[in-house]
């Protein structure tokens, strides 16, 4: 009975890996977009499990993007190495900043992470070596834009994020983060070193966001500070997806990302003018019906059927 879960995961993985054999370039490109948002949503949720509400996704995303761009332009890093650089940069900066910022809670933390992202943006915009407001173009995107290869890289990032999330759920970190979320004082007095765990989780999730930012730059080949690389979209969309999918779970944000991306794209193709209106209505209705997200709803259903 316990093994069917692993079986499903294995089957899903095989299907995901062999997808380029069956579908064309456009669905693969869509899959890349879904994987980008999925990794962002899931990493955001991982930090939220400790009760820390981050609005700094775009900041670390952009930081990673710039790290990739700068290392491959000035030092000639190969694409995968530059992705590593993105993850390490974002993770290190997060760990450094985290020491002072993670003491804040709830909305205070949210605002400070948002402000940090804006500071990264202004720096990128005002420096010469980052290309100023006009941004920079990458000489060559990874694998020369080959759809299957880029998809596999994105899939690897997505799967990595899911695995990290599952590890966080299954190990001591899970108990630590849940107890931090529920009551910091109790957690501290029961011997959980709150701060160590918080910094680790913040650094890891930020590193994922940086990695995704790097991959974004490798996919689309440019950075541009004002409208794209630090766009508020990379804060709002992942949060929306995680909320609709269901918080504090691994599969909730995944479901949310797949569902909302597919809906957005198909609406756009069918209703060229005004598709965002329908999208907004779907969002409102969705959250009113499933206040706990889709995963919350599924869990509830299982409980009912078990009883």
């Amino acid at each position, binding site marked *: 009975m316990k093994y069917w879960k692993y079986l499903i995961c294995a089957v899903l993985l095989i299907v995901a890996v062999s997808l380029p054999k069956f579908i*064309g*370039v*456009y669905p*693969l*490109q*869509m899959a*890349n*977009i879904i994987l*980008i948002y999925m990794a962002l949503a899931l990493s955001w949720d991982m930090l939220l499990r400790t009760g820390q509400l981050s609005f700094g996704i775009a900041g670390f995303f952009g930081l990673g993007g710039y790290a990739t761009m700068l290392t491959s332009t000035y030092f000639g890093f190969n694409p995968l190495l530059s992705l590593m650089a993105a993850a390490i940069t974002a993770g290190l900066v997060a760990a450094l900043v985290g020491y002072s910022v993670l003491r804040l809670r709830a909305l205070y933390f949210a605002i400070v992470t948002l402000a940090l992202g804006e500071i990264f943006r202004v720096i990128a*915009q005002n420096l010469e070596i980052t290309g*100023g*407001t*006009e*941004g*920079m*173009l990458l000489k060559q*995107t990874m694998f*020369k*834009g080959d*759809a299957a290869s880029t998809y596999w890289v994105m899939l690897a990032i997505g799967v990595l994020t899911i695995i990290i999330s599952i590890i966080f759920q299954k190990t001591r970190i899970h108990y630590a983060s849940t107890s931090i979320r529920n009551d910091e004082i109790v957690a501290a007095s029961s011997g959980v070193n709150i701060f160590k765990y918080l910094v680790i989780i913040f650094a890891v999730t930020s590193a994922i966001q940086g990695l995704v930012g790097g991959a*974004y730059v490798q*996919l*689309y*080949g*440019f950075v*541009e500070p*004002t*409208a*794209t690389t630090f*766009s508020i*979209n990379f804060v709002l969309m992942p949060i929306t997806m995680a909320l609709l999918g269901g918080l504090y779970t691994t599969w909730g944000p995944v479901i949310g990302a797949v*569902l909302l991306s*597919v*809906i957005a*794209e*198909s*609406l*756009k*193709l*069918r209703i*060229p*003018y005004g*598709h*965002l209106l329908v999208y907004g209505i779907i969002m409102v209705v969705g959250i009113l*019906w499933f206040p706990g997200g889709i995963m919350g*709803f599924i869990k509830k*259903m299982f409980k*009912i059927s078990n009883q």
Partner: protein
Amino acid sequence: MRIKVFIVLLLAAFVTGLFFVAVPAQAAEPIKIGALLPLADATGKDGSRSMELAVKQINAKGGILGRQVQLIVIDDELKAEKAAAALDKLCTVDNVDFIVGGMASGITMALIPGMKKYGKVVVWAGAAYSGVEKAMEGQDWFFHLHAWDYQQGAYYEKGWAEVKQKYASFKRDKMFMAYEEGAFGSGSFKGQKVLAENGKYEVQGEAFKSAAMGGGDYRSVLRHAKEFNPDQFIWVGYDKDALPMMEQAKEIGFSPLTFVGSPPAWPVDFAKQPLNEGVLLYSYWADTMKNVSRASKTYSDAFHKEFKDTPTTYFGPLCYTNIMILADAIKKAGTIDKAAVIKALETTNYPSPLGDTFVFKKSNVIDHQANSWPKFMQWQKGKLEVIWPWEYATAKMIYPFPAWDKRGKASATIEGEKKAVPAKDAKKDKVKK
């Protein structure tokens, strides 16, 4: 609970249905042109309508090479990843033969890898950032219509020099540029500084936060401009900045000899604002050009007839030109074969509604750059009039810019214009009949 489950299942089925049921496959008959435009933006709306108009006209005449033309427009949403996906859809799902459209430079940057991968013939309307040009070096399939940023700058210098020759009192020794802090504005200022060094005049500039990005208070920049006391004041921003910029200039009493703006479009009813009198701008096209250019009149009338509306941005005629140039080339080539169409495009000679006759030449970097040029225009009595180049001029320049506090006369003429509006409407009715 059951109803909820049912509805959820229904929704899920609907969504998956939407995704898998592709647009009904059509016979390989029509020539397919794929367009990428930001449909929620004024430029994209004008552009897509004008493209539809062009395709309709072509098909009404029996299409090209005996085949109908099918236009597939996809919204790029001004988002890089969505634009790249849309390009993939056009090239792999819809299997289009040619790519057209394009507006923002930032979005074009994200499309470069995809365009290079597919290597289809691209006739690109927008993107002025010269970084895009560098990335397109040596790509023979890339045809670019809009002038590059450095070309525009050099062209403006030429224009002002000619204006100076004609108007003895015209002065432009000191110039202040207020520019929005994004790529559009700061790129312009960078270019301007180089030009000023060569042209030996003084230039100073400062960035402002555009209302499009949550700004809207320009007074600190305007004060610096006033302190500098320039002969010419130029602001590079968006339509959202237009009127507040002028109101705030009036508020602090700043009125230079020439007041120039270069937004891609103007706000609704800007023509009726008394403050607009004498404001100069750079644009490729104005509706009044129908009085001096026959191609412009034909386009403008057809657009009116089709949509009962006037295009508000030059992306209307530009996108119309975009389709027409491609159609002409296919006709000339007699096939949709890539090499043949590229050769035919190279011989393009199309009198466009923008006024210019389009031919492709070498630019600094790429091989196929059209010679379309912005014009100097001025708001006069609620209408956009072309001032320069002289061959398209529809009116004489008002110089100097009338000071804000001495506008009693100007506003009187504006009121006269308001009264004249019904007459204009009557004309419209005649056209309808």
